[in-house]
């Protein structure tokens, strides 16, 4: 089996700050990491490889520095890594991104047929969850999103069974290979990479493709040009209110603090007060 895993390098959003005046993201000093949701996808691919054998190719579109994300994936056990990088890809929205990634996968499968493509649930910088469905639709792959467990694979009859999170329950679905799976967080735990794995990954040759190498001829479909959506405004969320009114009690005792809070709630918010009484009776 040959599996392609799409990983993106993202700024660690837990450490991101917004410039208070210009409303731009201050990336300086913010470490770049592999999109955390993509690691679940990679681990699931590795587990399938442990079970059924085969090869894993990791694919990342990004600036040259995104090489680090691919090396990380190699250290966990991916076999090949492809970095898709070209100035012409800059400014891509989800439609243009899925076009470029789909083109690269089409190029990959010229060399070796692809049975499975994995993507993360979403990215932490964009949170759109649309690139996976976009790639599947472009390549005509069966699409399985929000997968919570990958079950049996029958490589001979080219079938796979997965559990997919739906509203109100779990769908058990069987579909045909090749397919594209996006996985939920928490369906597995990432394995550790040893020092030796990291050294091996650091020396591993990386394939770097620009637009032409990926077989993309039509530049109107990539980057800013290929993006139907346009950002018209970026702004900081309006602060909800001013600071909280701090509840104080002379004694400082928890009981007195609680009573003071209740008095506030029931007098200042009579409707809420009535609702609390109604609900609890």
């Amino acid at each position: 089996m040959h599996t392609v895993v799409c990983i993106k390098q993202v700024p660690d959003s837990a450490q991101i700050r917004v410039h208070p005046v210009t409303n731009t993201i201050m990336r300086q000093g913010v470490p770049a990491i592999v999109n955390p949701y993509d690691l679940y996808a990679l681990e699931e691919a590795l587990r399938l490889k442990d079970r059924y054998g085969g090869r894993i190719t990791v694919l990342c579109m990004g600036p040259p520095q995104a090489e680090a994300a691919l090396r990380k994936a190699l250290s966990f056990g991916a076999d090949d890594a492809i970095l898709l990088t070209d100035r012409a890809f800059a400014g891509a929205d989800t439609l243009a991104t899925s076009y470029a990634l789909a083109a690269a996968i089409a190029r990959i499968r010229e060399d070796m047929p692809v049975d499975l493509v994995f993507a993360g649930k979403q990215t932490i910088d964009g949170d759109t969850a649309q690139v996976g469905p976009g790639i599947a639709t472009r390549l005509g792959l069966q699409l399985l999103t929000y997968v919570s467990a990958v079950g049996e694979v029958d490589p001979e009859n080219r079938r796979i069974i997965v559990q997919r999170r739906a509203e109100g329950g779990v769908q058990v679905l069987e579909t045909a290979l090749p397919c594209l799976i996006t996985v939920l967080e928490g369906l597995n735990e990432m394995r550790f990479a040893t020092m030796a794995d990291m050294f091996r990954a650091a020396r591993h040759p990386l394939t770097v493709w620009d637009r032409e190498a990926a077989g993309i001829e039509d530049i109107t479909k990539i980057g800013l040009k290929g993006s139907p959506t346009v950002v018209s405004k970026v702004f900081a969320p309006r602060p909800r209110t001013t600071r909280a009114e701090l509840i104080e009690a002379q004694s400082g005792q928890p009981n007195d603090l609680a009573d003071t809070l209740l008095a506030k709630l029931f007098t200042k918010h009579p409707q809420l007060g009535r609702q609390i009484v109604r609900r609890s009776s």
Partner: protein
Amino acid sequence: MNDNTAAPPDKKPVRRRKLELDPRLAAYTGVWVFVEHERGLVHPVSRELLGEGRKLADILGVELAGVVLAAPGDVARGFCDEAISYGADLCYLVEDPVLAEYRNQPYTAGMTGLVNAYQPEILLLGATTLGRDLAGSVATTLRTGLTADCTELNIDLENRSLAATRPTFGGSLLCTIVTRNYRPQMATVRPRVMAMPEPDTTRTGRIVEHSLGLVESDIATKLLEFIPDDRRDKANLPFADIIVAGGRGLKRPENFQMIWDLAKVLGAEVGATRPVVQAGWVSADRQVGQSGKTVRPNLYIAVGISGAIQHRVGMEASDVIVAVNEDPNAPIFDFATYGIVGNAIQIVPALTNAFRQHLTTARLAG
């Protein structure tokens, strides 16, 4: 190129200029709302979207349509009637046995078929697992723009375009996105951010039927089984009126019992932050925030929660927020309504007692 998102925040904002709408685009008219249903139930986000869609359609002076894709039968017709009662002027209906359960391929075919035949200018879906799955495929098939996970929708009157606002970078920034030269303009919207409208069952409207033209053997994906969630102990956070939520400040899993106790007295739901869920103190469906649920209760009591942006985006629409935290500089105090600075281990039992007493007295007083 590091920004494949629909919202690269360092992209230069476009300059506004008055545009004559290309006749190719002007052929697209009307606002559509996809009526999502699973297991015979309409998802509440669809009703919220019909309310929002009504407003947009009125601004544009066009019709609002519901879109129902379903297995043939009374239930499907009922969904159409319901969409009309929630504000639609008409409802498009594709009935086919292959649409009985959600699967990407037949639903994508049904939706793109309708769009190509009737050409709406705006198509809205809920940002649910189903809606996000379907929207991605439909937008790609139609080669049009999609703004995912929006929290606000407006019409830019200058050029009749949909201005869709969504959070990025985990809620640190908001950006407004337009789809200039493609139709329809698509957006998915998070549940519980738009107000729920009142239905009016006296409203009437037309039902427009359309056929799908697929047979079961055309569809590669088969549903083997549906395992419904265990409804007993299931959280219904998005619709709770009161939520008591606990964070890492509770320190140990045993201490989380305090949260349940206070919630019980208040008849409230229990919520939690991500670290608490990851530590396994409570189930994942109780996580509030960017990668959990968006909630908007009348009262949100946040205990031992720092108020990180990823948590905040999921709960700041609450009417009244009470925060209990021992650190007077915790970010949660920057936006809570009331704050108690103190040790949760002592404060929460005192709150539980005070509420219990107050409620007993109130009940006795009738």
